[in-house]
């Protein structure tokens, strides 16, 4: 087995996450799909760390995890705030700027 297979898996997971961001309407599910994309990118980083024989990519994957954690905290706080004022977690409902 070649290490490329990990990269293929990562590409497939990233694509599935991207489709989820476009297709799903519940803001929380959209957010989870973003998390899936970040995780897929992390798998690529870890695989390249192994291919290159250095740990730098693992440090970058670690930073990605920290940034993802921050993003989840702020994003979920925004979702809760929107839900509190509009009583809906649908991303189609938050369209006040359009009108």
């Amino acid at each position: 087995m070649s290490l490329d297979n990990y990269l293929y898996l990562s590409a497939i997971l990233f694509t599935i996450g991207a489709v989820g961001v476009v297709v799903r309407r519940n803001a929380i599910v959209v957010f989870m799909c973003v998390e899936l994309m970040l995780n897929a990118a992390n798998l690529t980083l870890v695989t390249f760390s192994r291919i290159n024989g250095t740990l730098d990519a693992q440090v970058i994957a670690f930073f990605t995890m920290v940034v993802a954690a921050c993003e989840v905290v702020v994003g979920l706080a925004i979702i809760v705030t929107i839900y509190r004022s509009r009583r809906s977690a649908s991303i189609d409902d938050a369209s006040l700027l359009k009108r």
Partner: protein
Amino acid sequence: MQPLLTIQGPEAALFWFLAPLSVAAALGMLLVKKAVHSALLLAWVMITLAIFYIAQEAVFLGVVQVIVYTGAVMMLFLFILMLVGVDSSDSLTETIAGLRPIAITAAVGLGGLLVSLLGRATLGREPIGLEIANNAGNVQGLAQLLFSKYVFPFEVVSALLITAALGAMVLAHHQRTNPRPSQREQAINRFRSGSLAGAAGLPGPGVFARHNAVDVPALLPDGTPAPSSISATLKARGDVLDSGQFQLDNVDTTVVEEK
């Protein structure tokens, strides 16, 4: 001369066992209706990724993946899901006409592009593996890098964490637009509103001496049940018993000893 990387049989078996499962779970995340099921499937994908990290000699990242993602992040997701509750946006009907075919076409394009690029790209050398880099231990190697070469990004990330915590607090903070009514104001409102019947508090549920559970309305002096003595939630659920069966003349008064 660095040793070349050979992938052992067990790792290949692990990969071919777990990779289809993780792709299936990720697809299921898109297709299931309820957000909670999506969250559980995503947790499974994250666990498989953690196993892949550990298999790829990134032990620290694998453990962090389980603790941070499967533990903290997914817990936060489930918490918010419980807070927000089931919503109409869970439905899979498309609101923008033609969105789904376009999305699937674009996804096939993106996936095909990524996969074909990966298939055609060559590194020009064999993969090295992490035996040398992990010589002193994976955690020690990461710490060595983190506190020397990447110490400035590390500090910036700490600032980011503090900013995110502050931002979440500001967003979650809820300021009252009107002051909370005092006890005195509440008492005055009770006496001035509607009737005086509820001014001293609502009657408690239950029929004395016979059945005093919360699902039985109290009896008024004329023998009719008092509707205000039971909770509106129980009424809406239809969990209210008829208090007539507990009236003295209707009750079977023969005592049966319980064994």
